[in-house]
């Protein structure tokens, strides 16, 4: 480990940019997970499998059909939106009705069951072959000492755009307000005529759509494969914890930080250790600040 390299501005910026791009990827994946957690309280462990379905949807549209990649991303998001709503209505809603008061821990186990089924069905249908594309956008940007591919910049741009759109939707649209209201006080929201069941279904659909969109967008980095969702879901969970459970902006900032930290740790340590770094970081945060890095409210203890 040579720390003097850190003083080299070219390397410093290079790693920083790589970290930002990586962070944007994590942010995209984590935002859907965080949204579902924040609004419904459900920790969806099958989020990575929704991501995986997004990669296959993308592959289908761009390679099998040969359509342009923006259509592929749109299709991945739309397909997962519908599929997510279907999952919520058939499985999660049923559990909420049947399990009563403490249904959230059970919901976590339920999503594990969903993970196992989706992953192995994908294995049966698609096999173990990796299906990806080398890049969606060609070319490299050279800017002084910094070299970044346009592909990565595109990822950064789309992720920022989607993040902004999500924020505006939740903040300003009337459906967004209903979603926030349902999260803060479901009983009161119901007396105002808000259909909580519908809000939950739509929320889960949006969360799934974000996972699918991430899968489609990142297909050149994570080619379609039945177990491709594992790394993304671990990183997403890490961001959601670091940012504060259910705090979407917090998760996005945490994702950017995590991306940068990982980029540096990959640069200075062998690649295998970045997973240990992530896990250790999460454990430390849970010890010293269980409400996450960016939460002002105290965590609910029970």
């Amino acid at each position: 480990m040579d720390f003097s390299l850190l003083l080299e501005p070219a390397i410093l910026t290079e790693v920083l940019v790589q970290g930002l791009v990586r962070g944007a990827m994590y942010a995209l994946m984590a935002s859907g997970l965080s949204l579902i957690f924040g609004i419904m309280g459900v920790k969806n462990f099958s989020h990575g499998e929704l991501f995986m379905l997004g990669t296959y949807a993308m592959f289908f549209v761009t390679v099998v059909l040969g359509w342009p990649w923006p259509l592929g991303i749109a299709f991945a998001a739309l397909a997962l939106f519908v599929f997510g709503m279907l999952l919520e209505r058939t499985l999660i809603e049923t559990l909420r009705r049947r399990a009563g008061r403490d249904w959230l821990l059970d919901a976590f186990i339920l999503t594990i069951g969903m993970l196992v089924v989706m992953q192995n069905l994908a294995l049966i249908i698609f096999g173990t072959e990796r299906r990806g594309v080398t890049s969606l956008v060609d070319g490299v940007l050279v800017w002084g000492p910094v070299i970044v591919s346009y592909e990565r910049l595109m990822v950064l741009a789309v992720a920022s755009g989607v993040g902004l759109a999500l924020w505006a939707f939740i903040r300003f649209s009337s459906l967004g307000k209903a979603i926030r209201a349902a999260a803060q006080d479901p009983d009161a929201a119901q007396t105002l005529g808000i259909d909580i069941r519908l809000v939950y279904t739509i929320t889960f659909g949006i969360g799934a759509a974000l996972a699918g969109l991430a899968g489609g967008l990142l297909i050149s980095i994570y080619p379609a494969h039945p177990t491709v969702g594992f790394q993304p879901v671990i990183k997403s969970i890490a961001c959601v914890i670091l940012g504060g459970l259910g705090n979407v902006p917090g998760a996005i900032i945490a994702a950017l930080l995590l991306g940068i930290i990982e980029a540096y740790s990959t640069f200075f340590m062998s690649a295998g250790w970045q997973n240990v770094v992530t896990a250790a970081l999460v454990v430390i945060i849970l010890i010293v600040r269980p409400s996450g890095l960016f939460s002002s409210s105290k965590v609910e203890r029970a």
Partner: protein
Amino acid sequence: MKALEAASQLADVWQSRPARIIKIGLLIVLLIAVPPFLDNPYITRIFISAVMLGVMAAIYDLMIGYAGLINFGYAGFLAVGAYTSALGTFHYGVSPWIGLFTGGVATAFVGLLAGIISLRLRGLYVALLTFFVGEAIRFTISNLPDYTRGMLGLSVRPYPDILGIDFGRRDLIAYYYLLLVLASVIMGLMTWLVRSRYGLAFKAIREDQLATESLGLSATKYKLYNFTIASFLAGIMGAFYAHYLGILSPTPEEFGVYRTVEILTITYVGGRGTLWGSIFAGFLLVGFQEYFRGIGPWRLVIYGCLLIFVMLFARRGLSGLKKYVW
């Protein structure tokens, strides 16, 4: 009407105490006698897997079913027991018999630490934190190949003979009986524990933590007891399992999420809060897996569907059937 009466009388007899003792006795005889009688290494292996996973699932049940704690890094905890024991033998020549104990103690220590960190928080935090603890353990093992041999695999020495009995992996029957003894001790210990006042406290916390605390019990303290004891027992099972495997490597299938999911499915299918349900479910699911080995991934699809089905429609698992068959 007569027939109904007769049926209900029959049910009374079937569920009477002597009948119950006979049934339990019969099961014990089956457990002891079937493998040597068939003398088929394949069948013996299935029995070993079923009992081993069943006990691991019962330990899991001690946490989830009695205190509402989800240890989602359980396989990592098993890895601590397995590697502590195996590394002790490998590097320092510690007897594998002592390794059972050191494996348990090391895992209990990890459980205690993880418990101190997470148990004051809500249930989901426990699941998340233990998940990352488990993953950190697994990645650390795979990143230290000089010490643990990482993914190359660490070979584990078999148990040395006692009184001329060969517990080596070749003679599976002796190994199986050793497992039965260990399983009986662990299951007996846990049954005693959940019937003691500790068990009462665990169940009270699971039902209503606030109400329990208002009675003057420290919920955190009892959860910590529960978690540490369960980790100790898991470590012992992990150490024992290491010797069955022969070669250890920190793969996700062996010591990662997949193993945790396999075990927790057994627990949920057996029925939470029953301990013994896990043993039955262990036989059911291991048998099922073996029977359907030919259909490949479909097996896991059915496995996942089973877990979903239990969560949605059979929330007490096999124990919901108890009144009909037991």
